[in-house]
């Protein structure tokens, strides 16, 4: 079998959603992620390494909802989740709700390789990341103005709906 890599940067994008600059930036980041993974496969390294390398590129790009460029919670924070799984032996690692880990996919990898667990969450996951020496960043690293404005629009919409339909269940408003 020929080594190969496929990637995604999220579904749901529609024509007209992106400025010309955003579209160029997203395409360039996708291309870079593919080339980074390809170089690893070309060197005879593992699928795991190619997957992590490609995802790190996309996490560091402001054009996708992961790492830098992540969307905001209701409270105005970025909370990041990631997971990694290997077909050979079905080893797996995952993290949820981390706020300061620069590349959550590398923390998922550390959970898989350096702990007996599969998933760590929140503060505990961040403590584990610190103990393992993974890069931590200030929360502002993840912030982009576009995502912040998306949250402000959602909050404004929500406030309008609450005023009009205050008896509607919170869960229904959440899922739309």
């Amino acid at each position: 079998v020929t080594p190969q890599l496929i990637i995604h940067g999220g579904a749901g994008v529609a024509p007209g959603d992106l400025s010309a600059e955003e579209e160029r930036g997203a395409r360039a980041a996708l291309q870079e992620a593919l080339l980074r993974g390809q170089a690893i496969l070309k060197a005879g390294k593992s699928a795991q390494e190619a997957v992590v390398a490609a995802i790190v590129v996309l996490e560091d790009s402001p054009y996708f909802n992961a790492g830098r460029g992540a969307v905001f919670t209701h409270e105005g924070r970025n909370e990041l989740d990631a997971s990694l799984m290997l077909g050979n032996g079905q080893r797996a690692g995952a993290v949820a709700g981390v706020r300061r880990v620069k590349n959550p996919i590398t923390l998922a990898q550390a959970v898989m390789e350096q702990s007996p667990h599969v998933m760590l969450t929140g503060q505990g996951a961040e403590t584990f990341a610190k103990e393992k020496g993974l890069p931590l960043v200030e929360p502002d690293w993840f912030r982009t103005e576009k995502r912040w404005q998306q949250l402000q629009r959602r909050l404004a919409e929500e406030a309008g709906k609450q005023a009009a339909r205050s008896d509607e269940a919170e869960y229904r408003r959440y899922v739309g």
Partner: protein
Amino acid sequence: TVGAVAIDAQGHLAAGTSTGGMTNKRWNRVGDSPVIGAGTWADSRCAVSGTGWGEFYIRSAAAHNICARVAHRGESAAQAGGKVINEEIVALGGDGGALVMTADGGYAFPFNTPGMYRGWVSVDGTPQVAIYASETLQGDV
């Protein structure tokens, strides 16, 4: 959400997914991305990374479900991915997409939204990238 699936020279598969979740999420909501079997799965025959409305991917065990269809029904990446992403999840009321790769080198990009950022490269090929549904990338479902 971003994700990647690869097969290496030893024929081993791997899958990974990373996300910021949903805008305006509350109560420490967690979607499918970190949930093994929902947003990410890999075994000896198949690997998947999902992107979409996480609650539906969790309820349908989407990533594992796709690979189970490959393993037990002999379906291709496109058949299994299309069935779960474009039929089962849509029937439940969800939407999104996925990457699917099988141990024979087959791969697919099933999605049911107006677009999905996606790309493919082989070890010695030229990277191919697409965003919108109107662009055709080999493997689109």
